[in-house]
């Protein structure tokens, strides 16, 4: 065998690639909500596993950063574990599960409950960056629609929802308008998280590897969820608090307890839940267990 054993650069990507991605990120920050094409690389994890987010994170990560990776709000889901291990191995950076301690947070499908602060960066993994894609499958068409600010189709879709169901039937990846200009896909976060995008002090970056697009929300950007005057945007609300920590006004996961319809609801954000429990908060179930 003559094949050389490969060696890898800090955070896996070579510096040329990082520079290319950083340029795309800077352009994305300069035009909030605009999808910047970039020469997405083939990563050692599959497309759909967060290759866009991983490339963005790899390009902005420095040796002093503290990285948090979540999937579905949790630090311990297998893909979050795997991506965190990837950066521990290739960049040797410190990692954390604490939202407040992290300088870079890579996420799939959630924004942490703990409000992000200035200086933090959150990187979203994006499957389909184009909010108009399911209304118009052609990229050549949707680019023109964005250029002309031609978003009527999206409003028609939302209106049809109301006509058919009485309300807008989009519950996640709910489209937003950025600084009154670009309609943007916030990635498949539940619409519950949409208000957190608005005027966030943190830098918000979105990476779509397979679709080769990067977009961004610089800190304090206006982000408005699309709606109608008579049908204002509303987030989900849960009827009960977290069964473990008693938190209200947070996003909950439904856990099936048995085959007789038993259910419990617990925080989707595991760090939020653990921090509260450490501080002495309890929920219905923890109270029962203590008795």
């Amino acid at each position: 065998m003559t094949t050389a054993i490969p060696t890898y650069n800090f955070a896996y990507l070579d510096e040329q690639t990082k520079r290319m991605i950083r340029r795309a990120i800077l352009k994305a920050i300069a035009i909030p909500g605009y999808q910047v094409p970039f020469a997405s690389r083939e990563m050692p994890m599959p497309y759909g596993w967060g290759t866009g987010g991983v490339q963005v994170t790899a390009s902005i990560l420095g040796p002093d950063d503290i990285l948090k990776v979540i999937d579905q709000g949790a630090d311990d889901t297998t893909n979050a574990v795997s991506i965190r291990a990837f950066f521990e191995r290739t960049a040797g950076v410190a990692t954390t599960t604490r939202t407040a301690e992290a300088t870079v947070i890579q996420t799939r499908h959630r924004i942490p409950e703990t409000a992000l602060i200035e200086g933090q960066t959150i990187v979203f993994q994006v499957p389909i960056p184009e909010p108009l894609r399911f209304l118009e499958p052609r990229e050549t068409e949707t680019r023109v629609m964005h250029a002309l600010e031609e978003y009527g189709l999206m409003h028609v879709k939302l209106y049809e929802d109301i006509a058919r169901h009485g309300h807008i039937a989009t519950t996640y990846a709910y489209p937003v308008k950025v600084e009154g200009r670009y309609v943007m896909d916030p990635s498949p976060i539940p619409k519950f998280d949409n208000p957190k995008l608005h005027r966030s002090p943190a830098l918000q970056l979105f990476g779509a590897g397979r679709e080769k697009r990067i977009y961004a929300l610089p800190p304090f950007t206006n982000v408005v969820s699309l709606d109608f005057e008579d049908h204002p945007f509303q987030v989900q609300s849960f009827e009960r608090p977290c069964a473990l920590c008693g938190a209200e006004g947070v996003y909950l996961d439904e856990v099936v307890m048995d085959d007789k319809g038993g259910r419990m609801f617990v925080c989707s954000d595991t760090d939020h839940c653990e921090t509260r429990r450490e501080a002495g908060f309890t929920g219905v179930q923890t109270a029962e267990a203590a008795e």
Partner: protein
Amino acid sequence: MYVAVKGGEAAIGNAHRLLADRRRGDRSVPALTLEQIAGQLALAVDRAMAEGSLYDPDLAAMAIRQSRGDLIEAIFLIRAYRTTLPRFGASRPVDTGAMRIERRISATYKDMPGGQLLGPTFDYTHRLIDPAMATDEPVASGKRRARSDDPCPRVTDILGRDGLIEPDGELPVDEPGDLTREPMEFPAGRDLRLQALSRGDEGFLLSLAYSTQRGYARSHPFVGEIRIGLVDVEVEMPEVGFAVTIGRVRLTECQMVNQFQGSSKEPPQFTRGYGLVFGQSERKAMAMSLVDRALRADEFGEERTAPAQDEEFVIAHSDNIQATGFVEHLKLPHYVDFQAELDLVRRMRREQASAGDSQEARSINCDAAE
């Protein structure tokens, strides 16, 4: 009592360990060697190199072994390695006219300079499972012809001399595009299109090509020529002022000759569909040439009505690594979004039940909502 699931890390570790165990299989059976894979599963190695778009038989054999024979997984391994390699530059166009030919056939001429050469083909085998495959019976070596210096011109060159087929096009001055280095934009140039097809999924291209034969963008194709063999790869060396051969690759080239009516500007002449693939991969090269021709519809003023003519549709979906990733990512957790949908469905069911004013329906839906 529910405890938030922990131990993703241990689970992943154990899964990898079990995978390695299954990959190795029965320890009393000797492990596959790379020589065995590269030598005896050579067409699998060729496919992994072609769709991995990296010419390295040893590496491809390693990837096939690592992937337990799952070729798309092997292609993925090669791609993920390829992406880390530095780019030194572009080679000169390979001269397939000067190929050291192992197989060369034409369906348009009975005989031509250089002749027809069947080479190592399955074409006229009877597909009967050979009992000898269960054992290791001695196999005679292939017959070799004396090396001939007779030229073996491409059939398209023979047609081109009489102007019966469109010219091959001018060589662009710039380096050809590279879709792995620049984001793809539509409409793409033919260079990028051919690159995408050449590394595209064999099965996808085969089906698309088949669809053109069944009337979805029919192009009346003839196999002008298929040739398989070794070509030199040359790189211009500005330091020394001439091209230097840096290696040799096995290629399959297919030149499809297609009908064309001509126009007010052009006299009637045949048109081309082109396929070029690493290794011995005739099915892929033929499919590629049919799809290439279908994608050129605009050039000939043909109406674009079929999937195979739709550049964005074909190119955006031809890459099996992208496709398998996105299809398979559905198995990743989606419970946050599912929870949101669950909530909505329950709400809609409640609303429908109360609107229907049916006592019975209401109680069922209330139950479901608990």
